[in-house]
C-alpha cells in the first residue's frame, strides 16, 4: 500500500461482502417460497423478501464501488485521499442508514412504513428497486455527493489519469441519474419511462464506465502493461457503451405506452450492447497475454478475466436473447428477464467488486504479493463454485422462462395456460434453480474461509 489513506477502503469491502451474504440468503428464501408458498408467510411475504434481496444488491455494489474508488484514487492521483475522515464518516452513515432501512422493511408493513415516514410529503416509494423511503433516498444522495466530492478533490489536486477521469465521469453520471428516483409522475407510462433513467442508465450506462475503469486499474497492476495501451482499450469500451447503451434504453420502451419508433430504435441500438462487453473480454485476455510482470496475486487476474467473460455472457448474450422487439413481445416479464438480470448483475458488477477486493484486500492486510498459494487455491475453488452456481441458476431460469412462454404466451387465448397453472407446471425447474443457489452460497462461504487460511511460512 503506497498511501495510508487507502486503508479507508477496507471497511467498505468487508461490509459489501456481508451484504452479499445477506442478499444470497434472502434469494434462497425467495427460491424456497417459489416452491412452498407458506414458507415464512405471513411473517415475510414475497414482496418484502424481494425488496430486501434487490436493495441489498444495490447497496452492496455501491459499497463495493466506494471501497474500490478509495483504494484506487490515491494510487492513481499519487497523493493521499483529500479527506479520509469524511470517507470514514460516510461509511458509518451509509451503513447505519442501510441497516435501518432493511430493518424497516422486515419489521413494519410497507404501507405503515410509507405512512410513518411521511411518504405522502414527497412520494417516491413503491417502485421496483427504488422502494427506499424518501428519507433514505435523501441519505443516499448526501453520502454519494460527499463521496464524489472527496474523489474529485483528490483527483484535482493530484495526477490525472484516464482511469481516474473516466471513473469520475461514471460517478457523476451515477449521481445525476439517481435524481430521477425523486420524480414520480401520476401517469404510469411517464413514470415507467423516467424510472428507466435510473435503472437502465445506471447498469447499462454509467456503471459500465465505473466497471471499465476498475478493470483497467487491476489489469495495469497485475500485468504491468503500459498505460497508453490500457487507456486506448478503455476509451474504445466506454465509447461503445455510450453509443449502444443510451439509445439502447429503448429496449425497455416497447410495451409501456411509449411511441412505436422505440421498437426499431431500441432493437437496433441494444443489439449492439454486447459489443462493449465483448471488447472487455478481448481487453482482459490481451493484456494478460502481453503481460510484462508475473504478479503473485494470480487469483486477482482470474477474477478480472472472469468478470469480463461472465459479464459478457450475462449482460451481452442473455441480454441479446430477448432484446429484439418481436422476441421481447413474448419474453417481456417472464423468467427469462430474471435469468438475464441475475447473470448480468453477478458477472459485470458483483465480480468486478470481487476483482478489486481480491487485488486490494491482501495489500490492505499487509501482503503486497497477494495471499499465499494455499489461500489462493481456496479462493479459486470459491470462484468456480460461485460462477458455476450462477450459470446453473441462470440456465434453470432460462428453461423456466422458455417453458412459461410456450405454455402461457405462444398459444391463443383458448389454449394458453393461466399464470398460476404455468408456474405450477414448471416447479421442478425452480427446484434446480434453488439447488444452484445453495451452491452460490457455499461458494461465498468458501470465499470467506479463504481469508482465514493459515499459510506455512514460504517467504521469509
Amino acid at each position, binding site marked *: 500500500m503506497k498511501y495510508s489513506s487507502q486503508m479507508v477502503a477496507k471497511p467498505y469491502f468487508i461490509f459489501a461482502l456481508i451484504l452479499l451474504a445477506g442478499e444470497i440468503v434472502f434469494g434462497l428464501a425467495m427460491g424456497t*417460497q*417459489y416452491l412452498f*408458498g407458506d414458507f415464512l*408467510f*405471513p411473517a415475510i411475504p*414475497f*414482496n*418484502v423478501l*424481494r425488496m430486501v434481496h434487490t436493495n441489498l444488491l444495490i447497496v452492496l455494489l455501491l459499497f463495493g464501488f466506494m471501497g474500490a474508488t478509495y483504494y484506487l484514487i490515491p494510487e492513481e492521483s499519487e497523493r493521499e485521499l483529500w479527506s479520509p475522515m469524511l470517507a470514514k464518516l460516510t461509511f458509518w452513515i451509509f451503513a447505519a442508514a442501510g441497516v435501518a432501512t432493511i430493518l424497516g422493511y422486515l419489521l413494519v408493513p*410497507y404501507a405503515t412504513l*410509507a*405512512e410513518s415516514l411521511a411518504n*405522502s410529503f414527497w*412520494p417516491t*416509494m*413503491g417502485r421496483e428497486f427504488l*422502494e427506499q423511503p424518501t428519507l433514505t433516498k435523501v441519505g443516499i444522495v448526501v453520502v454519494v455527493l460527499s463521496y464524489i466530492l472527496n474523489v474529485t478533490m483528490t483527483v484535482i489536486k493530484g495526477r490525472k489519469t484516464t482511469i481516474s477521469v473516466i471513473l469520475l465521469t461514471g460517478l457523476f453520471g451515477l449521481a445525476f441519474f439517481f435524481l430521477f428516483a425523486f420524480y*414520480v409522475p*401520476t*401517469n*404510469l407510462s*411517464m413514470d415507467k*419511462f423516467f424510472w428507466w433513467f435510473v435503472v437502465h442508465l445506471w447498469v447499462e450506462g454509467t456503471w459500465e464506465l465505473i466497471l471499465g475503469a476498475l478493470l483497467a486499474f487491476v489489469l495495469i497492476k497485475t500485468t504491468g502493461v503500459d498505460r*497508453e495501451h490500457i487507456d*486506448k*482499450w478503455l*476509451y*474504445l469500451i*466506454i*465509447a461503445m457503451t*455510450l*453509443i449502444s*447503451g*443510451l*439509445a439502447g*434504453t429503448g429496449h425497455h*420502451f*416497447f*410495451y*409501456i*405506452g*411509449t*411511441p412505436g*419508433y*422505440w*421498437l426499431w*430504435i431500441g432493437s437496433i441500438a441494444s443489439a449492439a450492447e454486447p459489443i462493449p462487453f465483448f471488447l472487455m473480454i478481448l481487453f482482459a485476455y490481451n493484456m494478460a497475454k502481453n503481460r510484462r510482470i508475473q504478479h503473485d496475486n494470480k487469483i486477482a487476474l482470474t477474477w478480472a478475466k472472469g468478470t469480463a467473460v461472465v459479464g459478457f455472457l450475462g449482460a451481452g448474450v442473455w441480454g441479446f436473447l430477448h432484446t429484439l422487439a418481436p422476441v421481447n*413481445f*413474448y419474453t*417481456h*416479464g*417472464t423468467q427469462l428477464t*430474471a435469468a438475464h438480470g441475475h447473470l448480468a448483475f453477478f458477472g459485470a458488477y458483483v465480480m468486478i467488486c470481487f476483482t478489486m477486493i481480491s487485488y486490494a484486500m491482501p495489500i490492505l492486510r499487509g501482503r503486497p504479493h497477494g495471499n499465499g498459494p494455499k489461500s489462493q487455491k481456496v479462493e479459486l475453488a470459491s470462484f468456480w463454485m460461485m460462477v458455476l452456481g450462477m450459470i446453473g441458476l441462470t440456465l434453470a431460469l432460462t428453461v423456466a422462462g422458455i417453458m412459461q412462454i410456450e405454455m*402461457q*404466451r405462444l398459444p391463443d*387465448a383458448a389454449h*394458453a395456460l393461466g*399464470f*398460476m397453472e404455468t*408456474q405450477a407446471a414448471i416447479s421442478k425447474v425452480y427446484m434446480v434453480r434453488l439447488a444452484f443457489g445453495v451452491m452460490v452460497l457455499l461458494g461465498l462461504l468458501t470465499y470467506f474461509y479463504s481469508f482465514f487460511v493459515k499459510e506455512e511460512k514460504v517467504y521469509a
Partner: protein
Amino acid sequence: MTERITKNMARNIYFGGGLFAILVFTGLTFDTVKQIPKLSHDDKITESVALGKKVWENNNCVGCHTIMGEGAYYAPELGNSFQRLGGGDEAVFKTYLASWMAAQPLEAPGRRKMPQFHLTPEQVNNLADFLIWTSRVNNQEWPPNIKG
C-alpha cells in the same frame, strides 16, 4: 485491429460517439414526453386513478406482480386484469376486486400467498380505477394473449 487505432483516435470516438448518443437520446426523450399523454389517455386520469396509483405504490404491489410486464414475476400480470378478471366490465371488475382483496390470504396450503392489505372500500375502488385506466394504455397490443 486495435494496432491501427491510437489512443487519440479512441478518445475521439468516445467523445464524438458519446456526444452524438446523448444528443439523439435527449431528442427522442423530448418527443416521447410529448407523445405519452396521448398514447396513455392522460386526460382520463381522474383523482381516483391517481389515488389508486398511490395504493399500488404504498403496498408495494410491484414486489410480486408485473404491470405492463414490469415488476416481479411471482404473481400474475395486472396491466390487463380489467379484461382478464372483469371481462372489460367496470362493475364486474370492481365487485371481483373487492371480494378478492377481502379473501386474502387464501386458505390453500402450499399455494403462493397474497397478504391481507386491510384496504378500505374506497382504496379498493381507487385501485380498480387505476388498473382500468392502465388497461387502456396504448402499449403496442401487449401482452400476446389475455393470460398476461
